[in-house]
């Protein structure tokens, strides 16, 4: 089980969503994809995409405007 990091700090729409999807496509089942970013709407929309694909958000946190979303494939 690998942990894949995706850094989307300072990226704007649609890059965080697209980079998350790219990472999830490459990941193997069981891998954890960890996305960090600053674009506020993507924080809301990445979990929507994860749910639409039938995957699971493990955790979500935010510190000083930088959010981190952990996704299990």
């Amino acid at each position, binding site marked *: 089980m690998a942990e894949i990091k995706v850094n989307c700090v*300072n*990226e*704007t*729409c*649609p*890059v965080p*969503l*697209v980079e*998350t*999807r*790219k990472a999830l*496509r490459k990941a193997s089942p069981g891998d954890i994809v960890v996305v960090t970013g600053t674009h506020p709407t993507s924080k809301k929309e990445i979990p*929507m*995409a994860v749910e*639409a*694909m039938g995957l699971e958000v493990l955790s979500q946190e935010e510190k000083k405007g930088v959010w981190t979303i952990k996704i299990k494939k």
Partner: protein
Amino acid sequence: MPEKATLIVHSGDMDKVYSALIIGNGALSMGMEVSMYFTFWGLQRLKKGSLEKGPLSKMNFGGLGKWMIQRKMKKANVASLEKLFQDYLELGGKILACDMTMEIMGVKKEDLRDDWISEYCAVGTYVKEARESNLTLFI
């Protein structure tokens, strides 16, 4: 079967091509299959070296408006059309080119980014795909 989005890109304006590619990438990112049909002015953007060449749909002012918007986009760190196009292809999005437009506008296959295009087609292919789509747009 995954849900499907089918987009017609009729406009070659820079801002509208942005809309099309952002929606296309968004739909792919949300787990949909996506086909984008390039026709008329949209098809011109598939010519080699033409992707970023479209004017602004409003307030272009001979390119000055476009230049100002592009400066603002750069400041906001908006991805280039080239990057969005590469992402779209990497996520499995399909590009289709209208062959009737090619004929009336004298566009040849070798003028186009043939490596991007998965099919040359006409309206029948679009309707067949659109009728089984959950989302279809004309841009």
